[in-house]
């Protein structure tokens, strides 16, 4: 497809379960971002890749969160031992280039519910 694709669209996990969220960015886009969006709030930065290099992971809430983009294309966000506070929409975005002012193309997100 032409846009950013995320899967699954919805994920229900039991507390303590591990989950993996996938992002397929737009082909050729250098930068890839993960954001977490809680209900009623704006997207909060989690981590950023430039090609396969993870340049910034300062937004990851704990060491239970891990992201990778091994070949500089598809990315996976993994959450280990999920907690109820992890419930949110996880948005992936890509941009053509790096630097300030590059507009982001977002996927539709993965809505994670931890019971």
């Amino acid at each position, binding site marked *: 497809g032409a846009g950013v694709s995320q899967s699954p669209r919805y994920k229900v996990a039991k507390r303590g379960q591990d989950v993996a969220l996938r992002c397929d960015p737009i082909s050729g886009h250098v930068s890839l971002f993960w954001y977490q969006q809680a209900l009623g709030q704006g997207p909060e930065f989690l981590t950023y890749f430039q090609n396969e290099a993870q*340049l910034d992971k300062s937004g990851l809430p704990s060491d239970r969160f891990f992201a990778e983009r091994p070949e500089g294309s598809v990315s996976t966000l993994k959450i280990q031992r999920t907690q109820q506070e992890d419930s949110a929409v996880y948005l992936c975005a890509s941009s053509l280039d790096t630097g300030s002012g590059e507009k982001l193309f977002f996927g539709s997100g993965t809505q994670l519910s931890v019971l």
Partner: protein
Amino acid sequence: DQQVKQNSPSLSVQEGRISILNCDYTNSMFDYFLWYKKYPAEGPTFLISISSIKDKNEDGRFTVFLNKSAKHLSLHIVPSQPGDSAVYFCAADNTNAGKSTFGDGTTLTVKP
């Protein structure tokens, strides 16, 4: 410490009138600002942007104004249409940071 603030959670306007959405920021290192529009169950989509070296950028019915001294920007939609009803997010970039910082959004409702 929220660096980008949208103080109005919601705004309701009549079709054909002007919609003005506001955004304030605290970090003087921000040098580029973007507005995104979000419909339910979709990701945000880019609407319009402005560099800190400008004070106005216009694209059709959408105009963004930047007041650097006040650390304030606004999005004007004229005329407003029912299809503009959505959540609008203000975002700010810092050249050295590589990431966008978002406000919490304003829900715009345009009534026919």
